[in-house]
């Protein structure tokens, strides 16, 4: 049995910029793994917390809207203010996002304490500084690892890496979608390594699928014993 720290993050908007866009800022459809690590680090006042396992559940449908913002444009870095200018930039925003995070790892106790007391060392936000959020403590729930090699489909509450999915099973009102090339691991400042493709339900509900052992990406499937029923995929 494992105990998972469960907490919610939500806000009026969020933006997790896809790194392949610059002139226009497109967003990933939900909180990314690296952004979550950064958020955990902000709570504790440390570098991004990459140790441990986390799962991300979408508690609200993915809704996006493109909005033009005035952003500081060209030649920002060269130090000569004379060349900077503000430029209208199309930014895709996530509207009313709500995520539930499941975490287990070495920082669990510290994080649970901080989130329960609603305190963090640095401001916590959903991808961009103008999307502030305060993590809300839900509880610490017991969960059991699932047995492998079953052909039985699972009802998973969280997003799942494609590598762990053998076959998708349809669900009424579900909108299965895939986001590819999500950055996997932060190596250093601005430096990342690897990518992961993830399946999610854009309508905000669970995914039903037949699992398979993930060859190159570690994924742990756990059945919740406490709290709400279902399976979570930690990675």
């Amino acid at each position: 049995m494992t105990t998972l720290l469960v907490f919610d993050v939500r806000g009026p908007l969020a933006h997790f910029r896809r790194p392949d866009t610059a002139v226009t800022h497109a967003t990933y459809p939900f909180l990314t793994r690296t952004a979550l690590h950064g958020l955990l680090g902000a709570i504790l006042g440390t570098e991004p917390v990459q140790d441990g396992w986390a799962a991300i559940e979408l508690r609200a449908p993915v809704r996006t809207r493109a909005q033009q913002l005035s952003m500081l444009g060209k030649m920002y870095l060269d130090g000569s203010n004379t060349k900077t200018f503000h430029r209208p930039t199309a930014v895709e925003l996530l509207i009313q996002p709500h995520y539930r995070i499941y975490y287990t790892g070495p920082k669990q106790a510290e994080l649970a304490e901080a989130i329960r007391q609603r305190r963090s060392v640095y401001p916590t936000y959903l991808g961009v500084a103008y999307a502030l959020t305060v993590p809300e403590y839900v509880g610490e729930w017991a969960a059991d690892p699932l047995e492998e090699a079953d052909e039985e489909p699972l009802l998973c509450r969280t997003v799942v890496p494609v590598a762990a999915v053998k076959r998708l099973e349809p669900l009424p009102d579900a909108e299965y979608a895939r986001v590819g090339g999500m950055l996997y691991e932060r190596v250093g400042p601005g430096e990342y390594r690897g990518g992961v493709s993830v399946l999610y339900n854009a309508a905000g509900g669970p995914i039903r699928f037949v699992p398979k052992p993930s060859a190159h990406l570690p994924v742990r499937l756990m059945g919740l014993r406490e709290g709400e029923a279902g399976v979570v995929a930690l990675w």
Partner: protein
Amino acid sequence: MLIDGLIRMGLPLLNRGGSPAEVIRQITDVEAGAQFFQNVILVEIDVAQRRFAVHPPMAWGDWQEEPQEGGKGRRKKTQARFVPDRSRTVAAPFVLPKGGNPLKPQGRYGIPVYLVYDKQFRELAANAEAVRDFLERRLARTQLWRGAVEVAALTAPLADAFATLASGATEKEKLYGLLVLAEVGEGHPYRYAAAASDDGPWVVQSRLHPGVAVCANLALLEQAAWQAKLAEGMEKGALDDGVCVCCGAEGPVVSIANQAWPLFAFEWRAPLPSELAEEELVRGAALCHRCYQGLTLGGQFCFSTASRRLPVWVTRELFAPAMSRGGDTPRQVRQEVYAGLIITPLVPLDAEAEKRFADGLEAFRRQTVYLERGLPLEQVLGLEQTVLPETLTDARFRLTVLYYTGEVARKNVHLLAVVEDVTPSVAQAVDELLVALGEEVARLCQALQLSPARYERQLLCLPPLLAMAYGYGYVWQALGRILHRQPIALSPMVRHAALRMQECAARWQRDDARWAMREEVLRYLVFRAFWQAYMRKVVQRKEEGADMRPWPELLNELKAGSLDFARSVDELGFAAGYLVRAFSRGYWWKTKGKDFLTHRVLTFGSRLTPDAVWRRAILPMPEYAVRVGLPLREELRRQHGAWLLAYRQMEPEVQKARDAFLAAFWAGYHLADSVLGAAEAEGEGVAADESAAMAEA
């Protein structure tokens, strides 16, 4: 990432292969830059003997006279157009500069084939030093150049060749040309042959070896073109031991910031990770060489083959104000909007399915399926003359639509919306609804005496229909919801329709406002019909607020003397419109041409509200009838009483849904004519007279 979709679309195209000539045409600009083949200066270099010869300038194609459509009543003119020899042009592949100064060396060159622009012809003519500078700066960026002869030796004869061309051209004539340094020999881009061979086209008759042909080694040219692409990708960094962000492969990688992807302008640095230098962007996110090739082909497909500029009439409607009519003059188009399509498999495909997928993409490229079965994308997405081949409408595929403004070539792309993971079957279902809606538009136009040709395009194409209903700010959001089978709201459309109708009502004494009002009634009822069909057939959910029965049904009941008005606010409003219109026809006749609404209801610029409809239009009808000597039919008298009773009962609901009441009122008012003509003996003549008067106006 967005490039993940492009890569998943591009890799099957890459795996599908194709002849070297096909690949060269796909990844270079030999088709788009056809004008550069007008003046080809070719230097034949025999690598083995280290000798060279400059060929006289030649044209790789012909000038053809093509008829040109003149204006009305004018004579048809002909215009000369340069048609390149396609079999030969693949022998000199190049990439057109995208942004920046095209006169300067840009990017990477696969083989020494360089574009020469008009200004350069004049500069390089008889100027050996300028030719040397021109060559050295470009050769330094060229992947496949063995240097079999010294650059210095080439400069003088080339300067002469440029001078020959420049002197033969008039001042007004724009010169475009191509300089080809053709290294000939085994293992080189060109080789000697007796004649054109199967694996490479004939390029030119050799000057160094009379009777022998110079042919292109297309396989090597394709390889060089890919190398140049890869070298461009490496400009923002390359690693030998990276991990591909898309496929997870370990090994040599290049940065995702590359020429193949127009949403990433290098020169705009603010959004880049501030910790990394520009040439180290590969450390942020990287692609393996194969995914990079897939990105190149996928990007080419999305932004060239599957990209369309939305027609001007669509763009105009997209930016039209939804809350007001925005004046009666044609609205100015503020910007050009493009749509690009990414087609991807949802899950990895087996070899056979992948081949069929690639064949489908190829069919899309050629649009040979236009007359065959497939999913037309014109009405659903606004992509004119575009059909998704039937093989790609399978449930295993998903569409991503990018709507953007700006210029892809200059890497200045501003996304308006990204609609991801659209299931073709949903798009198909919506398309069928729109086709069926055509009948409703025709019926309504007939009832409202409007020309269907004028409204069909606007009302039967989803983006402008949604823009009209929800306004510019929500059009893409609404489109995304529809393409994902999510419910959409009716109330914003009703609100906008009521506001626009109020605007028309404020100018009711003007005839143009009355026609504008009919137009608004048409838009209101068409969207209502679309919404009801969409919610019922596509979303398959109970429609909340769908409390107005179809208008023909309502009209028939009212004509038959129905007294059941209290079913909903919308139906109460519709009935009010019907009763007012029925009364006003007789009023017009008895008062010799006075409009009831202008004369008694919308007086002194007053606004029409539900209360005004009750208090000023319907309540005093018997009184007005007596005043003007109009005998009220028994049936109308009964309906009048029943409506007043229903209104008193429903007044609180009416006050909460004033927009719904008013929009339905105007619908009932204008549609009443379509059934009242035969019902009222005196009204028939009145209707004809009044319509004639409006038509004359």
